[in-house]
């Protein structure tokens, strides 16, 4: 018989509500809460052997510790598949399910499945890497959501042919593959159908959805006169950080950004600053971090009076592999700080 393990938060793990969200990770033999339904849905071929429970706050604020503890629990345990949730619309729970599934998948190379509502931010954070089933908004959907996860889990375990995301019921992972239509419909039919609908203003469905581009209009140019009075800030996705990377910004698929005080510096020098970006050869940037955050040039402009000054912090994250959703979130957070500080001119450098 194949074996499965389920991850739950403190609420569904029957520890308690928000007041117990700091509950440290624990593992129990057997079935807790939704694990019973999951075990039932998995039938005779798969058994849920353990339930892991962790408080949402614990996972959110001490993520590395939480994940390492749970990976430790799993070390040496036999399991063929790992489930988390369903997390419904609960944001922190969704993020926790995503983080633990990803860590388990990476370390133990077993398939993982979770379930979230489409409004759960965890969907955008993890959909490219995980099977996240389209779940209900609240625990009222528990039975359906668990059933969907279980059925797909059985398919994975039996290595059955997997259908496209929409048919299986999980959020598409951005992986596009060719399939033969069944029953077959030749391209000419599909073209004529789409053409007639488009011409007559009826709804139609493209076979290649173009990702929505969220373009922001470029701001009006500043005059030299205006610029000479303004402090200029630098924001970069080139991964320049103080040596040691104090904020532990990821080298790829970043979800964090940092800000670093440069008010007393004239120049970013080798040995004090470096890049942690994994998407390009770092040699040039490590030899002279100014090639990405051009503080030396800005100081020169400041002396010449071309700019009013350099804002005291520069902001940094890593652009490689970073999802558009994460990039947009970080961009908004950084912009909010800059606006708050009254900064009106920013140089954004990429690599």
């Amino acid at each position, binding site marked *: 018989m194949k074996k499965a393990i389920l991850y739950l938060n403190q609420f569904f793990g029957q520890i308690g509500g928000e007041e117990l969200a700091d509950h440290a990770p624990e593992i129990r033999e057997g079935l807790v809460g939704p694990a019973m339904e999951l075990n039932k849905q998995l039938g005779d071929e798969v058994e849920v052997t353990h339930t892991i429970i962790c408080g949402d706050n614990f996972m959110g604020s001490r993520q590395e510790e939480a994940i390492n503890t749970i990976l430790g629990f799993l070390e040496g345990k036999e399991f063929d598949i790992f489930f988390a949730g369903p997390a419904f619309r609960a944001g922190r729970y969704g993020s926790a399910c995503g983080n633990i599934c990803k860590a388990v998948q990476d370390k133990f190379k077993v398939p993982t499945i979770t379930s979230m509502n489409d409004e759960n931010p965890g969907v955008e954070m993890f959909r490219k890497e995980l099977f996240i089933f389209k779940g209900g908004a609240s625990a009222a959907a528990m039975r359906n959501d668990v059933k969907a996860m279980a059925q797909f889990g059985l398919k994975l375990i039996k290595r059955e042919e997997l259908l496209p995301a929409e048919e299986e019921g999980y959020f598409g992972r951005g992986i596009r593959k060719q399939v033969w239509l069944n029953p077959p419909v*030749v391209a000419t039919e599909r073209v004529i159908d789409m053409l007639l609908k488009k011409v007559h203003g009826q709804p139609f469905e493209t076979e290649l959805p173009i990702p929505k581009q969220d373009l922001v209009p470029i701001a009006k140019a500043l005059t030299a006169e205006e610029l000479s009075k303004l402090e200029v800030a630098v924001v970069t996705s080139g991964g320049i950080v103080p040596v040691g990377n104090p904020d532990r910004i990821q080298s790829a698929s970043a979800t964090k950004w940092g800000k670093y005080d440069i008010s007393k510096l004239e120049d970013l020098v080798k040995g004090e600053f470096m890049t942690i970006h994994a998407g390009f050869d770092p040699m040039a940037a490590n030899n002279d971090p100014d090639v990405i955050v051009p503080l030396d040039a800005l100081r020169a402009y400041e002396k010449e009076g071309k700019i009013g000054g350099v804002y005291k912090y520069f902001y940094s994250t890593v652009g490689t592999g970073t999802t558009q959703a994460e990039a947009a979130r970080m961009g908004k957070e950084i912009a909010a700080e800059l606006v708050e500080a009254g900064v009106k001119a920013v140089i954004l450098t990429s690599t």
Partner: protein
Amino acid sequence: MKLELGNFYVKDIQFGEKTQYNNGILTINKNAALSVVKEDEHITEADIVIVKPGDKVRLVPVKEAIEPRHRIGGGPLFPGVTGDLLQAGDGKSHALKGCSVLVVGKHWGGFQDGLIDMSGEGAKYSYYSQLKNIVLVADTDENFEKREQQKKNHALRWAGMRLAEYIGAAVADLQPEEVEVYELPPVTKRSTETSKLPSVVMVLQPQSQMEELGYNDLCYGWDCNRMVPTFMHPNEVLDGAMISGSFMPCSSKWSTYDFQNFPMIKRLYQEHGKTVNFLGVIMSNLNVALEQKQRAAQFVAQMAKSLGADAAIVAEEGYGNPDADFIACIVALEDAGVKTIGLTNECTGRDGASQPLVTLDAKADAIVSCGNVSDLIILPPMETVIGELQALARDGLSGGWDNDTILGPSVREDGSIIMENNAMFCSDQVVGWSTKTMKEF
């Protein structure tokens, strides 16, 4: 312009004393056929093999497919290519249906060549596995390109066309079993009822990426790289005005057979007068320089607008760089107020995670997609190989490789193969046959 295509449905093909067609049986005098092939002294070795659906045969490197036909009243099948220029698309031609002349290199393949399995799991990839094929397997003395990845394949492709003409002549004087009539009155001389229907142009983007002559698709013998978009009667395409080139990764390629039978054009004919007013074909191209792309898109949009098109279908023969032409053309048409449908394949990588087209635009909101060029395909050994199996690995076929640190070579010791869809002969069938699509997983 009125084209009558007289069809003869080939039930079987055999070798015999005389090249003739009788009651569905096509008989070929092999020696006579080979002497037509060898009219070109560059052909050094040649043989003809008949293969049928279900045969345990793997063909590689396949260079071209042509439908055997005969132009009634004389004249070349491919005006400006196999003979003098004449007006194609107006008159009568006889066609041997259900069969094709396939041209296979006896040894050497190239980037643009492909593979066909006549049976087994691999058969589903190619349209040509459903046809009875007269396979010309030959070698040439074109030593300048023997070891080149890009081959013009001139001697072989032209030999294939001569062979198709020779075989087609077998039905020159016979009564066709069925006649397809393709007739479109001039754009301004159509019935009121038809003129009231949404008018549609078919925009074709045949392959023309090579600056050097000899590799690209030809339009009446003229290299498509050297033309600006032009208005054509659809009958011209169906009647030999266009021939396939020798450049594009094979799954994206349109063979000469594909042009002769262009399903999307035939489908528009079916709708003409019922749901649409089919204005005709705008023949564009796929040149590489940005200015050439912009010029082509501008010409297409202007022509569509001047013709009064309400809608357009844009089909591209290729992927990668040509995606820029494809999207630019759709955007230009949409900006001109022409509601446009795109017809293409995609390149999402072996893992399926790459951006599907090199450029994207929200205005391209109606696309029919026919497959992923980089889908990985693994097939067992095949009893008989016609051509040379090693060509897939050795000669730089777009979907083959001689070694890969993880996957190993494309051709394994036991004769099984691992390849990308890229090297399946004309398999994405963007001309309209494709029953493949793309789905998100």
